[in-house]
């Protein structure tokens, strides 16, 4: 019996998935909303039966009327439960990156195609955790759905079960929200004593960074769009043409983080160590480069450089076609 039920459930899930394909904007329509009596609804039906028997035994029409009223309430609840989900819109909101083992906080914007109220919305991904919200007067809400990041790389938002027991808890209305929403999960940083340094380290001395700084280095030819402050106006006044003054930061340290410098055979562990040092260097504003098999990130500092490095580490070895985007 339970296997039959299980078979039916899997069949239903597949059928429902076909009806609500993955998309970046989901609007709930009559095709994608399901309604069925809840446990309490079944309990109410039993109660109605009990009251009906009472009314019949006492030949009392008001008691029968009450039984019919409760039954009608259930009927009307079907419509209201359905209407409660109808027209809800779901779209992804911007998201913070997370590291392996953390909760990836997916933000979802829930709005409505109508200026109506949608009550008691419960968003569930697994059976334990759910998020509850109301959408009042069609005004959009942003809810945060946490997904545990179990591995690095792209984490897509799993299919969400949206359900509501509004108005009286007798009818369960539900829909599957398959939102095209993903976040990049970085490897978990694991501390090591020494950075995995490759060859070509400039530990001391004068080294010219690729970053702009305040140390004058010489002149460059003018490029369109260069800041006016950098134009060598004296040269221009002399009629020597347009030149740019070249300022560079003077970098005392720079390091190359190298894949091959790591001894561990565990790829994930290597990535974790590299991640640790990427963060470490970034927080101390130390210039670094990253050498991975078939990928090299040139020397640099700053937030975008750190993100580039971490992205490379997160997607290392992933055959994700969309990774380049």
């Amino acid at each position: 019996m339970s296997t039959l039920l299980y078979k039916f459930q899997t069949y239903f899930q597949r059928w429902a998935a076909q009806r609500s394909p993955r998309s970046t904007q989901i609007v709930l329509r009559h095709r994608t909303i399901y309604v069925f009596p809840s446990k309490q609804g079944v309990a109410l039906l039993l109660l109605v039966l009990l009251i009906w028997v009472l009314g019949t035994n006492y030949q009392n029409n008001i008691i029968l009327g009450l039984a019919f009223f409760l039954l009608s309430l259930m009927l009307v609840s079907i419509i209201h439960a359905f209407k409660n989900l109808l027209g809800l819109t779901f779209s992804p909101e911007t998201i913070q990156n997370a590291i392996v083992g953390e909760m990836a906080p997916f933000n979802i914007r829930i709005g409505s195609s109508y200026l109506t109220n949608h009550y008691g919305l419960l968003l569930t991904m697994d059976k334990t955790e759910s998020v509850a919200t109301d959408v009042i007067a069609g005004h959009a809400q942003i809810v945060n759905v946490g997904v545990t990041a179990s591995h690095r790389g792209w984490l897509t938002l799993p299919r969400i079960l949206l359900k509501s027991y509004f108005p009286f808890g007798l009818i369960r209305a539900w829909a599957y929200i398959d939102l095209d929403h993903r976040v990049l999960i970085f490897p978990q940083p694991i501390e090591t004593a020494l950075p995995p340094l490759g060859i070509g380290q400039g530990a001391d001395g004068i080294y010219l960074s690729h970053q702009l700084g305040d140390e004058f280095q010489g002149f460059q030819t003018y490029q369109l769009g260069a800041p006016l402050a950098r134009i060598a106006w004296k040269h221009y006044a002399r009629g020597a043409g347009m030149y740019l003054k070249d300022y560079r930061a003077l970098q005392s340290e720079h390091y190359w983080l190298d894949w091959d410098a790591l001894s561990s055979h565990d790829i994930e562990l290597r990535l974790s160590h590299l991640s640790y040092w990427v963060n470490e260097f970034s927080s101390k504003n130390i210039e670094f480069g990253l050498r991975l098999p078939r990928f090299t990130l040139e020397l640099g500092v700053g937030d975008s450089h750190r993100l580039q490095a971490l992205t490379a580490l997160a997607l290392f070895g992933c055959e994700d076609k969309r990774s380049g985007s």
Partner: protein
Amino acid sequence: MTSLSAPRTISRNSLAWLFAVQVLVLAPHFFYLPLWLAVVWLLVAFWRWRIFQGAWNYPNKVQKSLAVAACCVGLLLTFGSGVRFELLISLLLIGFSLKLLELKNRTDFVLLIFIAFFIVATQFIEFNQFAAAFYGFFCVALLCTALMQLYKNTVSSLVREVLPSFYILMQAIPFMLLLFIVVPRLGSFWAVPSPQHAKTGMSDAMAPGSFTELMESDELAFRVTFTGKIPSHDKLYWRGLVFSFFDGNRWTQAREQQIENRVNQTSKRLRSHIDYIGDKTEYDVIAEPSGQMWLYALAAPISWSDNIGFAGDLRVQAFAPVTERMSYKVISSLNYNLHLRSDNELTANLQLPKSGNLKTREQAKQWMQDTGTPEKLIEKLLSYYHQKFTYTLNPPALGANNVDDFLWRTQQGFCEHFSSSFVFFLRAAGVPARVVVGYQGGDINSIDNYLVVHQRDAHAWAEVWLEGRGWVMFDPTAIVAPERVRKGIAESLSAADQKMLAKPFGASLKLLLLAREQWDALNYQWTRWVMNYDSSLQSSLLENIMGEVSAARMALFVLASGGLALLLLLAFLMLRTRKRDISDAVFVYRQLCKKLATLGFTPLPSETPRAFLLRVTAARTDLSAPLVRFAQLFEVMVYGEQSHIRDQLLKELAAFNPRKVAF
């Protein structure tokens, strides 16, 4: 936005609401149940409130068992051991009250509300007037409101939730009516204990003073709708019981009559001794519960509905004691001849106690000798009543020889005295006679033209067997007080006596009387069409709607009308929801333009909102302050839908009234 991992606990709001609804649901039951149950509820509710405040704990197992045991002992002391209706209801109420102590999460809350639904249903067993139904459904609506707020995440205050929930409940009413009309009515599945409590009504004996209580009662006995014209007041003798046995104090049914009570005889054999003469009178009676078997009809019944039977002495009776309001239909012929059914009927109706009332016995024999025939004797006796007797509800006390005392000494009394002495006198003279009790007359409700018979209309009269004519009815009371039967009891009494008679509150005020009649008419129609809607009424109604009634047609009818109603409801709801085709900002701007249009300003096609509003401001400087605010808010709103801006904007819109500012 809240995270829901465990079932939510009960908020202060819902707890207070639950208490209030519990009080409403329980209150009607305390009219007939011991009041200590209310104390139990109060204690439990107080305990639960203290738990909510964090002062006390949930009861442990020992405390719970003690509470249950205490209540059981209380029930045992109150009701004894028999299974009675009141006991079952009390158990239910105690369970409902004590469950409060286990109220921890949402599931318990829902369970309590479901039990409350059932308790509302049981309250209708006891109270089934229109007002009770209204009250009960009001309770149900409040319970539904409590249920609904559980399934919302934003609850402001429960009082505000009432209207939205009522709005949904209203939509359930058409479906309820449909179900009420078409769902087949079945007979009882098993015998159920009925509420037993003292009900006023005619008893199975007539002793001195037994009518006094009835006459002081304003309670309803039964209501009658006549198919044709209502017969004149003096013809409305509602026959209840016939008493042939007298023990010197009480009139009761003779043993043979009592046996007949239990036998539901076939109508043919019973009616062979009745000659029906003249027109038929057809009427529907709705009798209030009396706890007795006998019912009331005009003599002589020709045919009657299936739910009642015909007994000897031209009586109708129910098959079981009437504990619920019951309706039946009778066709009577007001003119009839009633002949003897058996020979010993005459001897049984000559029975007198062995001793007592010697003067009456003597006088009766003497008068019989003087007059010669029973007819003349009756004539003489009635004229004696007419000359010497007065009708009063407050007669002097009678001694042991009560007939002697009444006939020859006090000569003041009412129907029970007149009928008793009349029958005694005739029997003593050798003329078979018996006492008939029932009701006489009734009040006509001017709103719906039906007859209301109250307990105070109780009456007793006599039947005398006359050779060649059969049993003939005489009413000595009518000789003494003709107004009693012509117009009703209130008209026949002196001012002092009227005080004794049960009278409705404010009977002297015309308006109140009219309102009372209106209310009674409403209740009567309610009883007639709603409470008494049974399988026969159902099939005739359904035949009117569908023609021939068959299972297939019925199913089709139910599905078609139910489905259509659901679709209509959905369409109605969808029409009412406004589609969000424009942003909030544009919506507000359009509303504003509508308001300004009343002043004659309309935006040009090329004008931006700001330009338009500036133009209006230039023309109407008095409006500049709100409009400038508007323009600013509007621009903020367009570049980012922020909820507080939106609310502010809507508030501004609502407050903006160009005409009011103008003057």
